[in-house]
């Protein structure tokens, strides 16, 4: 049944979800479930918690789709922001994380499914490249906050730096990351961002 929705863009799907369309919701899950689950697992490092996070995130998407504002974000950005937020909440609540190894992305989940989806695979490789192109201290603040859930004050303690330094480093890091991503032409634009790209 969800086949009916393959032709629909992400904004189209969200509009249907806001009206209570479950098939459209299932299609949205099939598009972004892998990314959301990969992210949740990366942050929580726990299958059970990752499932909890993804479930909560998608149920929030379902309940709040009518609040989604396409002028403020793309649907995928919105969805992944919700997922990230929930994952960080769980990590802080559970006082998890913080194996002292901060290799970040290198200790990737072992159940890695080699991305079958070409777009997802390319996106994965390019975002990692962009991240790798940052100077170490900048990559470090991004990885520790985004993937490990450290708050700014925790970062300041951990890195032995004044809070102001952490703040400005975070700012520079994100500005550079953005430039790196743009240089590679990476955006959250994907095969589903606009109508008529899938038939």
């Amino acid at each position, binding site marked *: 049944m969800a086949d009916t929705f393959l032709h629909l863009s992400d904004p189209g799907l969200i509009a249907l979800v806001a009206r*209570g369309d479950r098939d459209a919701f299932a299609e949205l899950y099939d598009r972004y479930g892998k990314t959301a689950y990969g992210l949740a697992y990366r942050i929580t490092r726990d299958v059970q918690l990752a499932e909890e996070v993804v479930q909560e995130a998608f149920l929030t998407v379902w309940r709040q789709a009518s609040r989604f504002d396409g002028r403020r974000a793309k649907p995928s950005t919105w969805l992944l922001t919700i997922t990230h937020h929930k994952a960080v909440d769980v990590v802080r609540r559970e006082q998890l994380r913080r194996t002292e190894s901060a290799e970040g992305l290198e200790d990737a989940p072992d159940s890695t499914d080699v991305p079958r989806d070409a777009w997802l695979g390319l996106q994965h490789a390019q975002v990692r490249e962009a991240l790798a192109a940052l100077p170490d201290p900048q990559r470090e603040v991004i990885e520790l*906050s985004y993937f490990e859930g450290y708050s700014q004050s925790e970062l300041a303690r951990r890195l032995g730096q004044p809070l102001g330094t952490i703040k400005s480093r975070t700012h520079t890091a994100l500005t550079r990351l953005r430039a790196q991503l743009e240089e590679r032409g990476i955006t959250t634009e994907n095969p589903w961002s606009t109508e008529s790209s899938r038939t």
Partner: protein
Amino acid sequence: MEHRELQDLIPAHALDALDADDALLLEEHVVTCETCRRDLDELRETTALLAFATPPIEPPAHLRAAILDAVAETLPEAIPPRRARLAFLRGALAGALAGAAVALVIGITLHNQLSDARSSRDAQAALVSSLTDPTTRVQPLAGKLEGAVLRNGGSGKLVLVNLPSTAKGRTYEAWLIGANKVPVPAGTFAGGKTQVVALRGNADKAKTVAITVEPAGGSSKPTTTPVASASLA
């Protein structure tokens, strides 16, 4: 906290790295400060991309099932009224519990709307009787058009409300899509305030009803993507 100080919190917030109290302050601030809202939204587009730096993992099948089950038991928050004149209809339908009672309510509502629309008295009578028939199944349309599919055995009707006119030389066309996924033409119709369209073909076998905009006279297979559809579960 001043605008300037709040502004400094934006990058960290885009990474969800603020402590809860600061995050709350900033969220409140961006409601009224357009500059900060735009900056935050822009940075969120960047940080959301970081999600793709983690290897995607196929979630377990039981998770998909659990999420879809949970969704079947709850309704999304209501769409603001301006966006959904027929929200009351959809809300009633989504419950889909009290068939006859629901149909009666819709029947009366549509009856009133039809009166406005100068439809013929006979057509109104037929529609209301099919709506009040407890064996009629009602499925709201999803997409850009407002309305519902009514099905009673093999006979199907499309009810469309506030249907915009098509461009000159174009027409709406309905399609029945069965298990073989091949759309079968089910009739063409023009825009108009309220339209009741009897679907050609056996609606009982259809899994989906879709509506496309086609060149005048209709097509034998869809040439554009559907503007609305309904799944006939």
